[in-house]
């Protein structure tokens, strides 16, 4: 089956112009293919480049060389609007932190990705309620903005939002961090459901048990660190 996510020979460096134009190479020759229905874990020591690679796939970081093809769009070369369309319909990203917009109620935060693909307000909210319920966010909180929620609650809202629209490709950065056992179980269930419907998933999991449960294989990004050619 052809890959949903196809990363070839990707390299990246940072140039810090205001610090004497210091050049910091962070990745070289990254290769990775993820098929639909597969979940691949990125592993490696802290700072090895796991989040960096994920951000490059999402288009949040620029790529210096190579290609990152998601579906039929090469993120490394694409126009901004193509990446925006990709993020709306094809590629989902659950980051470690919920970036909160003040005044928007939780239910609308979660419904937003569905509104963005044209689902009407009622249907979108319906799905949002399902997810929030599954993730054990009490109903009395649904009309409030997540600004005042605990870290764990915010993370669960973040996850609900990330899984609202059925993305064919997903990037999950520490989805089970700051969750108790019960909710961790829910999230792993969501990931398994996504895999079952054919989503290609790349995830970062510090929790080895979680990793072992949902991921089909591991890729060590240390292998892509510049200067450490195998």
């Amino acid at each position: 089956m052809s890959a949903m996510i196809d990363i070839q020979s990707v390299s990246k460096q940072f140039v810090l112009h205001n610090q004497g134009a210091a050049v910091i190479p962070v990745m070289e020759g990254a290769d990775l293919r993820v098929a639909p229905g597969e979940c691949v874990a990125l592993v490696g020591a802290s700072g090895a480049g796991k989040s960096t690679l994920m951000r490059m796939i999402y288009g949040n970081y620029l790529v210096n060389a190579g290609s990152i093809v998601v579906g039929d769009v090469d993120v490394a070369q694409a126009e901004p609007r193509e990446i925006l369309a990709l993020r709306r319909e094809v590629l989902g990203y659950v980051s470690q932190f919920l970036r909160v917009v003040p005044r928007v109620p939780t239910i609308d935060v979660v419904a937003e990705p569905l509104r963005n693909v044209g689902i009407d307000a009622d249907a979108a909210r319906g799905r949002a309620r399902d997810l929030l319920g599954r993730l054990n966010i009490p109903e009395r909180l649904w009309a409030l903005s997540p600004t005042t929620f605990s870290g764990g609650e915010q993370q669960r809202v973040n996850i609900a939002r990330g899984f609202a629209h059925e993305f064919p490709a997903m990037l999950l950065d520490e989805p089970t961090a700051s969750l108790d056992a019960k909710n961790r179980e829910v999230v792993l269930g969501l990931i398994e459901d996504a895999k079952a419907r054919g989503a290609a998933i790349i995830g970062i999991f510090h929790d080895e048990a979680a990793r072992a449960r949902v991921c089909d294989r591991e890729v060590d990004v240390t292998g892509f660190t510049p200067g450490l050619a195998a």
Partner: protein
Amino acid sequence: MTPLLKVNELSKFYGNRIGCENVSFDLYPGEVMGIVGESGSGKSTLLNCLAGHLEPDTGEVLFQTRADGMRDTVTMSEPERRMLGRTDWAFVHQHARDGLRMGVSAGGNVGERLMAVGARNYGDIRSKAIDWLDRVEIAEDRVDDRPSAFSGGMQQRLQIARNLVTGPRLVFMDEPTGGLDVSVQARLLDLLRGLVREMGLSAIIVTHDLAVVRLLADRLMVMKSGQVVESGLTDQVLDDPQHGYTQLLVSSVLQV
């Protein structure tokens, strides 16, 4: 998909000084473009050239009109440009006073654009005005009050209502939250975000506030000394800035 706006090699000089130079970009329907830069970067000059308030020295500003396809608004006749400014385009000024008639009631301010394109039923005009005031969170009982009786944030929201009532496709905004209290800013930004998405608007927003672009803009252009030094997706430009100036700008923002 064809772009809504195509800007080619736009330049404006003030004698020997560069206002803005060789600016080119495309804007698609539904996209919000932020333009950031510090004072003197040329961002306001650029916005005013795009919106037809200033005549550029070189370049084209091509707009996808409803009836005539892609037209260069720089060389358009003034009546056509003014008509565009009342229907398909909107301009939200930094100071509400520049964008409102202070001596006319809120309802009259919102209704003016409707009357300018031929609305002749008082009842209809008034109810549309009240509807729009509600959408920008101004209470119905303020419809007959003059903007001079409104707070700064309310004046700004009234300005937005006045501009959006004819369903424009492109909105220009010049520091829309400048001078407003933080909580008022938050409310306004949220409102703008909602309206942009609901109405499928394209927008070009000039600001020096990076938090505003993070919230509202899909794409970002960074200007310095009249040049566009960097452009791309907002989150990419702010999280992975390539140009030295952008890096400086991003690192200078105080974390709250």
